[in-house]
């Protein structure tokens, strides 16, 4: 126990000591804050430099008056305050170009176009602008989760992307690495799998904001060497599946320099949160989805070449598990119709790598998709005007040779027909002009088994024409085949619709796609045939075929008059197609086709058509795009340049299949179709 006075003494002493300690500590803190600052040291040293460089008394005085204080740039529009200039004092003084950091003036002429009072520093360089400590603002030890970490100088051009990088409209002067990187990005078709700003594929992750991703957003566990974003990216480009297990990204063969540029470009992708007055107009348009439509070839490069190759060659099954079909194949192009290509593009192939590129998914407009599909036609021998071909005659014997090689496998040895319609029908040849025949040969009949034979030379075509004319028995009817025959008839399409449905579709198919009779609601056919041809064919018919003359004989109690025929023709001219692809007739025996399939096709196409070393045939989207005619033509012609043989011609390794066998195979493949896919592509 102690006395009151001793308590008093104790507590008084304690209070005194504590007060003293407190005052000392406050003094210490004040000294620490006022004097022991890096930025103050730098500014003092800079003041000395200024004084040393002064070339007049006035300048000397100005230098000595240089205020030592915290300096900052406060930018309202960006809601930032950057205090970098507290240490980087010489940043705007051009005389300081040769000094060491942090006194050095900014390199290049960038500050002229990007004045610090409007942009500050961190919008390009990252880091914490408000800090006055080096480690926090621009040091190596940044917190991993920082959204805007300090950008290392070798990737500094990626920051330009915040305001300047528009993928589809690039005006990027003065940023060579970024420009190179974006060129590579576009050239390699990265948008085929990755989406940027709404446009692109959805196989890989969306890269729109890739530049904003902090270190923590990357899985660095399998990166060798320093765990940086650039390292992750460069190793990912070289060995994607190793860095990101489960990735189907192909490895790109790029040089180290190209990889470096690509990294800068990818890190320059930002969905910019900066106010629009900081962004270039092409970028603003892109963010709003208002860019000019991409034209066909450019679209193919941007979206398709990563898988299909820049030359459309595709990938073999050795290079890629599912393989990628070659688009640059003459046989394919001659058989695939516009509808086939657009359908495939828009609907994709379910279960395979080919994604749907419909507008809803890829944000590509319908016009752009049509353009891209159209751009594929550069691998088909171009269609030529028939006028020049007709200027000379051809050799019948030569024509017979060509016919025997190419046409007889469907049209029969003497043109009597078989798989395809007979071409030797006298009524047909009497009213078909040379123009009509050449157009048919050149362009084929889309979605039927008649391919486009534009690969034949002019001479070969003339010869074929001569041969076909040699089969003619009735004289040609000039009033139909001459210029006079191309008058348009007038009729009521609505009446024609119901007449067609009740009378014509029984043979010609519900949608005129062809069955017993040829495809008559076929664009190629209708483009080649004149109204006179149509009227006459309907009225007079084709002798020795089921097509009788509708104005001459009554069938099912119905005999048509000329007005009826005009109505039908008017309907044919105006009928829009259905929103799916009708397969067409399938008159084969699927059971027999199955046996053939298992014997001949299953090693490559798989026992149930699931695709092993060849495309999957049981794919519903494929069966929705490919009509029976497509399948038949593919079977018959094969795909030269790929392992698919021509079964119509036969070869030492593969026997020739009869037309019946081919029909059976087609019927078997068709039996795998379980749904009808209606597509917006076909409107």
């Amino acid at each position, binding site marked *: *126990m*102690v*006395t*009151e*006075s001793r*308590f*008093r003494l104790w*507590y*008084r002493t*304690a*209070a005194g000591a*504590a*007060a003293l*300690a*407190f005052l000392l*500590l*406050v003094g*210490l*803190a*004040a000294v*620490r*804050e006022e004097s022991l600052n890096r930025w103050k040291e730098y500014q003092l040293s800079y003041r000395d430099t200024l004084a040393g460089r002064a070339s007049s008394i006035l300048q000397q005085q100005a230098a000595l008056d240089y205020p030592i204080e*915290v300096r*900052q740039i406060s930018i309202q529009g960006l*809601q930032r*305050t950057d*205090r970098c200039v507290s240490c980087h004092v010489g940043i705007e003084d051009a005389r300081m170009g040769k000094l060491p950091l942090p006194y050095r003036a900014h390199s290049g002429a960038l500050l002229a176009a990007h004045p610090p009072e409007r942009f500050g520093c961190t919008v390009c360089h990252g880091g*914490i602008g*408000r*800090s*006055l*400590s080096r480690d926090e603002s621009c040091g190596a030890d940044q*917190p991993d*989760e*920082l*959204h805007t970490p300090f950008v290392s100088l070798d990737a500094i051009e990626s920051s330009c992307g915040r305001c300047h990088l528009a993928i589809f409209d690039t005006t990027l002067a003065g940023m060579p690495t970024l420009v190179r990187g974006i060129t590579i990005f576009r050239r390699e078709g990265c948008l085929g799998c990755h989406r940027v700003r709404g446009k692109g594929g959805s196989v890989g992750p969306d890269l729109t904001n890739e530049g904003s991703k*902090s270190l*923590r*957003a990357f899985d660095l566990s399998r990166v060798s060497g320093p765990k940086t974003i650039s390292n992750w990216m460069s190793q990912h480009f070289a060995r994607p599946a190793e860095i990101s297990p489960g990735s189907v990204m192909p490895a790109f063969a790029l040089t180290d320099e190209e990889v470096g540029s690509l990294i800068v470009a990818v890190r320059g992708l930002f969905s910019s949160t900066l106010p629009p007055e900081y962004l270039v107009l092409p970028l603003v348009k892109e963010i709003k989805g208002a860019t000019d439509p991409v034209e066909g070839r450019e679209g193919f490069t941007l979206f398709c070449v990563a898988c299909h190759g820049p030359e459309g060659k595709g990938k073999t099954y050795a290079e890629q598990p599912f393989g990628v079909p070659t688009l640059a194949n003459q046989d394919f192009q001659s058989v695939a119709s516009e509808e086939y290509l657009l359908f495939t593009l828009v609907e994709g192939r379910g279960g395979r790598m080919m994604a749907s590129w419909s507008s809803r998914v890829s944000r590509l407009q319908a016009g752009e998709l049509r353009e891209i599909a159209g751009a594929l036609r550069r691998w088909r021998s171009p269609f030529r005007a028939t006028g020049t071909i007709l200027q000379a005659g051809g050799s019948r014997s030569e024509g017979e040779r060509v016919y025997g090689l190419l046409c007889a496998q469907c049209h029969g040895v003497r043109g009597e027909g078989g798989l395809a319609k007979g071409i030797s029908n006298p009524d047909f040849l009497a009213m078909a002009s040379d123009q009509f025949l050449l157009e048919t040969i050149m362009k084929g009949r889309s979605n039927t088994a008649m391919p486009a034979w534009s690969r034949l030379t002019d001479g070969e075509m003339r010869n074929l024409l001569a041969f076909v004319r040699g089969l003619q028995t009735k004289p040609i009817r000039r009033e139909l085949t001459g210029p006079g025959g191309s008058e348009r008839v007038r009729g009521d399409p609505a009446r024609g619709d119901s007449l067609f449905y009740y009378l014509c579709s029984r043979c010609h198919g519900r949608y005129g796609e062809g069955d017993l009779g040829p495809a008559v609601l076929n664009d190629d056919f209708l483009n080649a045939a004149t109204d006179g041809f149509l009227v006459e064919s309907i009225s007079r018919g084709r002798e020795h075929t089921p097509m009788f003359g509708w104005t001459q004989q009554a069938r099912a109690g119905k005999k048509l008059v000329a007005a009826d025929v005009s109505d039908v023709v008017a309907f044919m001219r105006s009928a829009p197609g259905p929103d799916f692809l009708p397969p067409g007739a399938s008159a084969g025996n699927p059971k027999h086709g199955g046996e053939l399939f298992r014997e001949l096709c299953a090693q490559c196409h798989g026992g149930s058509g699931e695709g092993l070393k060849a495309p999957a045939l049981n794919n519903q989207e494929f069966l929705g795009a490919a009509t029976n005619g497509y399948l038949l033509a593919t079977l018959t012609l094969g795909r030269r340049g790929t392992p698919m043989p021509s079964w119509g011609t036969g070869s030492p390794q593969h026997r020739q299949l009869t037309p019946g066998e081919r029909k059976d195979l087609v019927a078997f493949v068709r039996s795998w179709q379980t749904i009808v896919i209606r597509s917006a592509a076909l409107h």
Partner: protein
Amino acid sequence: MRAALGSFLAILRRVRTERTSVRERSHSVSRNFFLHMHSARTHLYSLRPGFTLGLGVLSLSLFLILLLTGVLLMVYYVPSVEQAYGSVKDISTVVAGGKYIRNIHRWGAHGMVAVVLFHLLRVLFTTGYTGSRRVNWIVGIVLFCMTILFSFSGYLLPWDQLAFWAVTIAANIVASTRELTDLAGITALFDPGGFVRRLLLGGDSVGQDALTRFYLLHVVVLPIATIVLIGVHLWRIRKSDGLAIPPDADDLVLKAGGISIPKELEDAKLRREHTVLSWPTVLWAEGAIFLGALAVLTLTAILVDAPLLAPADPSMPENPAKSPWYFLGVQELVSYSAFTGGVLVPLLLLVAAGAVPFVDREENGVGYWFGSRRGKVVVSVSVLVALVLTISMMWVAIGMGWHWTRNAPAAIALIVNPGSILATLYGIWSWLVARSTVSTKMGVFALASCCLTGGIVITILGIWLRGPNWEFVW
């Protein structure tokens, strides 16, 4: 006023206090608005440092320091989600003295939570809650809760990753009554946890509304309420005639001897009470504690900076997301059962704490630490028992894994979990103690020691031994 000034000047002149009259010294306290909370006389026993450890005064000192530094911080802080982080960063970097003000505030806040807890324990273990002090004990419990709420509401204000995710976690713990109401299927009708959570956050997630409410709580509601309650708390001390000291404190004073009582205090009545005039001794004591706290806080502020992580990013959760240290014990229990750990156990603790003066009405042992030698034994043994029980329970839970709850019905998992098991074991132990010692006070001491020890163990677990995904790290 004149009297106070006179005696103050007298001190400055180094005049021995005996020269100032009793009346003057008495008046300097009783006639001063700011000082008249003190009684004119204070018992010597109350002034012993080893008795109270100065914890009550320390709590108040810390509160005043926090008030002052808080007001200074309010000059620059902006409670908006866009500007909060930047304003705190500015305070730490460019505002003159800002870094130290902020650090003092931060460490003072953490310190105050601990000191208030220790003050509670001091009053508990020196039986300062009996008789007329029962109401004050309840006021003290309320003040403790307000301290926690203070610290919690301030935790969010920097709006960095630490703040954002800590508050997200704690708010979700509040809503964990849903575990129980979901089982009963009555959540749609009765969801107190969800209600409180929405009340706190002003919405379903932590955003501007939460920041505004927390700021409002932190700078308006809680300070006013706390000041009022502190006033009540101090007034109740006066009403109970000062601190709870042993009834034989005078004899103790006599026994130790050596008291020199000034001549004017030869009045028999005064001599018997062995009190001293509050001015200036008690004021010196309080001043020493206050200045000491200030000095220690300033030293800490110079040595260690208050943390400020990256700006809050709702799309990038911290892993592990940890609530403030005083909630980490709760969070550890919550990881086994949200309701039991988050609501039941804390509520039980609060109710138990509040019920102490109504359960234990024994008047013996007042003013002695742990009441008696027997009390010391009880406390030491209880601490050991709690250590053993808690460590083995957590060993089992962590070492063998607490996975059986995955396939068990939710009700079973709610009832059987480390939190409830430990609570039950502590309860059984303290009941056994109460029975064998035939003393409710010993039972209370046993329970309090167990809860304290157990709480410390699981808080240590939560702070240092839990890593990403709340996995155990050693």
